Structure formats: structure tokens, C-alpha cells
């Protein structure tokens, strides 16, 4: 384990814990942004530059902004002293159980000890060519999905407003 | 077409930009401490006290009547009347201000003190560079700082000063006439004491002349 990996991984996991446990929703969203940035750092560690920067562009630049807007538009009217969680112990127990299962699986598997091959030559050109040839159907489906999601989001968020008029 | 308005506007601002370098009509800025605009004749800032003789304190026209103190809307004038009397510019014995302070931080330059003063002794100055490091003591000016000569008044407000001088001249003339009449009356009285003839006829004689002098001065004001 190298030092940069340890720092980035610690930051990512720490901010993810903060994102799930802080009371203030905006603080949660900001910690989430740190998690996304840390993940982008991990992608860079894995020589996946393109996906790493796409991660920042999409998650930090768009998804985080969406979440923050949603938080501000749904200002909580509930009393402050109400607990932020429901039946925390069951959920945490489930999560810890899932983690232990996965950790044991990783430790038991020989795949986990695999050491990286020399950094592969990743060119954006070949990635684009792959997207336009081998993966052209998923790409088109993705385009359709994004359009549908955009229209759907607009219509869902608009409906109530029209009803009020 | 979209964008033509933007281009037109940019040409206009470019004209302004270039014009401000060579066209003095466009660039009207005066760089103040070095360059100054001469103050306009009707400009007024804060009041000052007019004096006539060389010694400012002796020549003050103010007689400490305290009308301005009472009329001042923000009450920025503070006057203490003197215990003794002294001769004024007409030679009459008058009180004079032992203390005459104006708090310039309170004064609102309304000129009411000037309007109500019957002695032409308080006028508006054009001096405006009064900033001070002491905001309480520095802006509370006393009679020594307030006293300025009649020549100064003539310089800053020539028209007003001429009118004021005319009023004063008329008053002086009236006072002199009265003094003369008094002296004549006294003489007549003395004569009447000797033999009371013509004293009743001569005494009211100067009276009509003084309103005439006052009306003569009025159009000039």
C-alpha cells in the first residue's frame, strides 16, 4: 500500500462516513463532494484519467449541485431534536454484516492479491472508437435514457405547479 | 439583427474613450486639490462674523443680541453677552460677545442667522475645507476663528456686501443725523433754558430725513 493511496482512501472513506452521519444536510452534501473528489483521485491512481475527470465533471459539477438545490428546496420543517435516523442499530448491523462478508470474500479470493500489470496505454481516441463501434447500442440507449430522464424530471417537478394554478 | 445594437454601443463607448483624451468638452473632471473651480458668488458654506477695524475683536459688528442664537434651527450658536459696553462702529456704546461659538458639525448652512441679524454682523463664508483631526473641538470654532474682515466679505460676495455696506452707511448717516439732531436739541434745550424759543420747532426736523435714507438704501439691497 502506497502513501498517496492511503491518504486518498482515508479521505474518501472518512468523508463518506461524515456524509452519512452529520446532522446538517448541507454539510452531508459537502462531505459527499469530498468523497466524489477522493474517488476521482482513486481513479487517477488507477490510470483511468478520463473517467476520473468525468467523475469530477458529472458528480462535483452536476450531481452535487442538484443535491444541494434539492436540500434547499425541501427545507425541513421538523423539530430539531428529532433523531435524524430510524432504528440505527439494525441498519448498521446489516451494513457491518455486508462488509464482513465482502471483506472475507476479498481476503479469501486469490484475485485480491493480484498485482497490477504495467500501466495500459489508454487513449481517448480508442475509447471513443470503442464507444462508437462495439458499444454503440448501449451509447444510444444511454442517450435515450438521459433524454427521457431530463424530460421526466422536468415534468415531475412541474406537475404540482400547474395543478396549483 | 441581433448584435448590431451591441456594436453601435461599443462604437459609442469607444468614441467616449478616445474623446476623453483630446476633447475637454467631454472630460469635465477637475482634479481638485491642484485645480479648483472659483467658488460661485452665491455659494454659502458656514457663517462668519464681520469686523471693520484692524483689530478683529474690537471691530466686531456683533452686539451679542442673541437673536441668531434663538433663531438657529439646530442650535449650533452659543453666545455669552459681555458685562461691559464699548463703542461700536457708529460710536454707540454696545454690548459685545464675550463668547461666540459655532459648532460646525451641527450647523446646517441654512443662513437663517444671517437673515435675522439686524446688525449685518454675521454672514455666510465660502470656505469649505474645514476637515479636522479633532471632530469635537476642531469643529467648534470660537469668535477669534470666526472673525473675518469686511474686505473678505466684499471679496467673496461683492453684490451682497455692497447692499450691506449701503444699509450700514444709511444707519450711520441716520445715527449721525440723530446725533446731530440730539446735539441741536441739546443746544436748543440749552438755548431754551436761556430762552425757550424755536426749540419745539427745530427738534422734530431731522426725523423725516432718516426714513428717506432707509428707503434710498432699500432698492440697493
Amino acid at each position, binding site marked *: 500500500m502506497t502513501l498517496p493511496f492511503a491518504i486518498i482512501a482515508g479521505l474518501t472513506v472518512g468523508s463518506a462516513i461524515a456524509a452519512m452521519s452529520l446532522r446538517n444536510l*448541507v*454539510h452531508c452534501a*459537502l462531505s459527499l*463532494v469530498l468523497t466524489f*473528489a477522493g474517488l476521482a483521485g482513486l481513479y487517477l491512481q488507477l490510470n483511468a*484519467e*478520463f473517467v476520473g*475527470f*468525468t467523475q*469530477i*465533471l458529472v458528480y*462535483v*459539477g*452536476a450531481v*452535487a*449541485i442538484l443535491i*444541494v*438545490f434539492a436540500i*434547499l428546496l425541501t427545507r425541513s420543517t421538523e423539530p430539531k431534536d428529532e433523531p435524524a435516523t430510524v432504528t440505527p442499530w439494525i441498519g448498521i448491523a446489516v451494513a457491518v454484516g455486508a462488509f464482513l462478508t465482502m471483506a472475507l470474500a476479498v481476503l479469501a479470493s486469490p484475485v485480491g492479491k493480484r498485482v497490477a500489470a504495467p500501466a495500459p496505454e*489508454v*487513449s*481517448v*481516441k480508442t475509447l471513443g472508437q470503442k464507444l462508437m463501434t462495439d458499444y454503440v447500442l448501449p451509447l444510444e440507449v444511454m442517450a435515450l435514457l438521459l433524454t427521457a430522464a431530463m424530460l421526466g424530471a422536468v415534468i415531475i417537478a412541474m406537475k404540482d405547479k400547474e395543478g396549483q394554478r | *439583427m*441581433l*448584435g448590431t*445594437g*451591441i456594436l453601435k*454601443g*461599443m462604437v*459609442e*463607448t*469607444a468614441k*467616449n*474613450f478616445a*474623446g*476623453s*483624451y483630446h476633447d475637454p468638452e*467631454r*472630460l*469635465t*473632471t477637475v*482634479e481638485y486639490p491642484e485645480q479648483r473651480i472659483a467658488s460661485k458668488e452665491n455659494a454659502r458654506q458656514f457663517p462668519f462674523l464681520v469686523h471693520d477695524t484692524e483689530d478683529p475683536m474690537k471691530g466686531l459688528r456683533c452686539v451679542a443680541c442673541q437673536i441668531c442664537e434663538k433663531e438657529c434651527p439646530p442650535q449650533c450658536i452659543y453666545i455669552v453677552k459681555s458685562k461691559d459696553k464699548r463703542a461700536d462702529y457708529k460710536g454707540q456704546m454696545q454690548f459685545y460677545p464675550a463668547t461666540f461659538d459655532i459648532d460646525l458639525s451641527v450647523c446646517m448652512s441654512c443662513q437663517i442667522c444671517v437673515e435675522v441679524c439686524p446688525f449685518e454682523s454675521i454672514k455666510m463664508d465660502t470656505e469649505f475645507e474645514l476637515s479636522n483631526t479633532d471632530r469635537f473641538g476642531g469643529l467648534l470654532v470660537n469668535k477669534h476663528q470666526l472673525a473675518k474682515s469686511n474686505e473678505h466679505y466684499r471679496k467673496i460676495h461683492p453684490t451682497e456686501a455692497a447692499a450691506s455696506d449701503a444699509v450700514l452707511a444709511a444707519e450711520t448717516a441716520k445715527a449721525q443725523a440723530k446725533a446731530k439732531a440730539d446735539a441741536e436739541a441739546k443746544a436748543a434745550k440749552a438755548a431754551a433754558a436761556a430762552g425757550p424759543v424755536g426749540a419745539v420747532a427745530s427738534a422734530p426736523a431731522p426725523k423725516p430725513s432718516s426714513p428717506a435714507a432707509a428707503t434710498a438704501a432699500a432698492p440697493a439691497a
Partner: protein
Amino acid sequence: MADFFQAIDQFPVTLKHWLMTQLGGVLPEWAEPLVSAALSITPILAVFPLMFALTTVIERKGLGRIQNRIGPNRVGIPLTNIRLAGFGQFIADGIKSLIKEDVVPRAADKVVHFLAPIALLIPVLLTYSVLPFGRNMVPLDLPQTGLLFFFAVGASTELSVFMAGWSSRNKYSLLGAMRAIAQMVSYEIPLILSALTVVMMAGTLSLSGIVERQMWHVAMPGIPGDQDGLLARWFLFTPWGLVGFFLFLTAAAAEANRTPFDLPEAESEIIAGYFTEYSGFKFAIFFLAEYLGLFAMCGLGITLFLGGWLPPVNFAPFTWIPSWCWFLGKLSALIVLFIWLRGTLPRLRTDQLMGFAWKFLLPMTLINLVVAALWHLLANSIPLVARWPLCFAMLAVPYWLLGRGFEAKFTKREYRFAN
């Protein structure tokens, strides 16, 4: 002679090499990449903040002249009468903002309030790392993802704006932040799409690669230019490049919150927008980040459309000028253009702003993308003389049609009482 100018051109690069070889024996091995990075960063940190400082003075002087005023012309060398035509102003302003009291509202979220200016400045500075400032002068050459890095890092400034606006607990701050985010998200799309046209034509995401594609000798299908290599092949000289450049500039002005798109800090409506509650040095950092963001956008526009550090023509007196001087010169010209625009245009309304982004800029950039593809495909079948007007007409007609919708609203106003 040519060697001499070559030496001046490459002076920063050779200086760094020399310093590294001098330090090579002294430094431990692990520190060498750090020192090398520091040596690359130092000139950027020196030049661009200084440029920001000078721009603030030039902008104030220029706006003053546009409004028939003189502008700042007093501050010079302290304790003397030397005035330097007011160019000491930025030092005085800097000292003032340094020693001013730092006021944090009592209700503010202290940590986020403190982090926001830092979180704004760092991404803005990071964008400079991929810009090619001159020949062989790219601090961080990302051959596969240069442009993507620029936009990814640039997009994260929106979050810092939100942090600043939200943590201040001030309705004007929050309104300003909301306006800024809505504006930046909307204008990011035309910005990226207009840059994408260049990426499509150049075939690379690397910014230094894009500059090299605009060189004289590189054979590019369909870029006008002298076959002998006298005239540069800037993308600006193509119809799609010309239109794309102006679309890019418009979107860049909106991204950088410049007039006429400076609604987030419309002082007549919402005080100073998201940095209302910032004072002293934190405010100065916001100001610095805003201008550095503008410079980075201008630098990107130069790299994409104006040939980066390339001179416009390939003969003697022009090629003697060092490449970084060309870059800085083009940057200064664009900054002057932005100052000029600021002096000319009034601020837009929010609905006009959004309408302009979605109804005009977005369709125009999409059409531009298609026209660029056509330009590339027709390169071998139609000669340049016919292709240029054809493609330009294909852009001009939609421009006119889309632009009409924005003109019709500005009818002459009738005043009931004044007339």
C-alpha cells in the same frame, strides 16, 4: 539571429532546466519532482496575480474614460510626489484588504464560510496547469484529457460559490449564489459544446496538441492557410471557428460572471451576491479568483481559436517575438475587450439570461457543431472559395432566425406622462 530569438523564446524553459541541474546534486531524490513542480508553478503564481492587479487599475481607468471620467490616477510611490499614473493603486488596495478587519457573521457556518474562498481559488488556479503559455511551456501536459481537466476543475467552482452563499446565512448571499449557480450550469453547456467543436476538428483533447494543429506546416484538411506556410491556420479563420469563438466568448463571460451577465453580484438588487458577507482578505480572494477565472477562460479561448502562442503569420518580425509574449498579448487584448464590453452593456434580466442560454446559444453551438462536421466532410469536394461562404451562410441564417426572437421584445417604450 534566429538562434538569439529562439533563446529568448525558450528562456523560461532553459532557466528551469538550468536550475534543476544546479539543484540536482543537492536535493534528495524524492524532493526533485516537488521542486520541479514548484518551479513551474512559481511563474504562474507571479504573472497572473500581477496581471489581475494591473487589470483592476486598467479596468477602472478604462471604465472611467468610457464614462468621461479620469479614473484612479493618484496613488504612486509613497512619500514622494511620483504618481505613476495611478498604477500604485493595486498595492494600496492590497494592503488595505490585508489589514482590514475580517468580519464573520455570528449566524454564519464558520467552517464553511472560511473554506469557501479557498475552495474557489484552488480550482481556478488548477485550471492554469493545462494551459500552454508558450512553446514547450505547459505546466502539466495531459495528452489525453487536457480540456476535460480544465472543464472538470472549472465546474467545481460552482460548489464553492454555493458554500459562500449558503454559509453566510444572508438572504442576499443565498440569492446571489443561486443565481450564480443557475447561470454557470446553464452556460457551461454552450461553453463545452463550442469547445467541443474544436476538439472534434483537431482530434485531440490535449491543449498543446490543439495549438500544434493550428501551426503553419501541419496539414489539416479544410483549414485555410497558405500552402507555403506563411499564414497561420488559426481556427478563427474558419466559419465555424469564427462563430464558435464568439459563442465561446459569450459563454465564457457568463461563466466568469462578467457584465452583461453579472447578475450574481448585481449590487442594485442583491448587494454583492454570494460574497456579501465577506470582508478584508477573504473578499480579496473572491475578487482574485473571479479575475483569474476570467483570465483562464480567455486563455482557453486563445488556445482553442486564436492559435495559442502562435503568431498570425510566419515571417521574420513576427516570429522573432517570443511565443509567451504572443500568448500574453492575445490575453491582454481579450481582457481589454471584456473591459470595453463592461463599459458598454447594461446588465441582463434573469429571464433574458436563461432564455439567451437555452434558446440562442445552445442551438447555435449545436448548429456550429454540425457545420464544422460538414466543413470537414466537404473539404475534398468543394474548393475553399466556395466552401467558406457556404458554411458561413449556413451559420448566418440560423443566427438571424434565432436572433429575431431576442430583438422583437425590445420595442420602443411609450411613456404615458412624460410625452
